[in-house]
């Protein structure tokens, strides 16, 4: 955990801040329609800032989002690394189900919750 945290720091020191990510223009257009305009860095500053924390948007993305990641990981018995990567490598049926769950949840958040909250 601590290593990964420092790894993040070192990566930014090497790459320079902000890390510019070039996602597809379709994604940019979709997000723009939802009101996101700042595409610099790794996370959208329109959503993830201390100022938005106490708004509906911040509560859903930062607080509820984090809660679901923690709760879901425990209930599903693993996350992206435990189920998607290690579990699929072992061809575990439990992991195949969990990955289907990840995909379904992600699609619901992206296509239903995001337009409602943003």
């Amino acid at each position: 955990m601590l290593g990964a945290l420092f790894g993040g720091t070192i990566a930014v020191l090497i790459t320079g801040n902000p890390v510019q990510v070039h996602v597809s223009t379709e994604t940019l257009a979709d997000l723009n329609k939802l009101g996101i305009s700042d595409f610099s860095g790794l996370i959208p500053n329109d959503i993830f800032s201390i100022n938005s924390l106490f708004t509906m948007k911040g509560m859903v993305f930062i607080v509820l989002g984090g809660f679901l990641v923690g709760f879901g990981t425990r209930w599903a018995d693993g996350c992206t690394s435990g189920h998607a990567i290690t579990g699929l490598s072992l061809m575990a049926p439990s992991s195949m189900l969990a990955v289907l769950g990840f995909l379904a949840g992600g699609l619901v958040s992206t296509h239903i919750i995001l337009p409602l909250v943003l």
Partner: protein
Amino acid sequence: MKYIPLFIIGIIFGIILVKGEIVSWFRIQEMFRFHSFHMYGVIGSAVVVGFISVNLIRWFKIRSISGEKIDLTPKPLKKVANISGGFLFGLGWALTGACPGPIYVLIGTGAFIFVIVLISAWLGTYVYGLVRKWLPH
């Protein structure tokens, strides 16, 4: 001393997650909109490398850094828990753009607001512990 190799692997992991753009919220959105092969390529190739690795570990009976036997038993099948927990995790993944590992990496990159995401995630695991006996598995 025994934590130093783990610490170094963690650092390498963190650098790779940033350089591979896996910790980018925008990349996760792109993935769930099927607009790019990027994330599928990363996860897919990780599974291929993982598959080769677990088989090498099995054939050559490779031990961990600390000399222990590596347990490669797949996680037990718990249909309801795997799917419903996975679903909730997926909801959170698309909202925060981060799964557990990347939360730490993002804090390291200076996205300090993810400390709140981390606290919420901890709280999520804690509340799971409280309510697990009432949940289907």
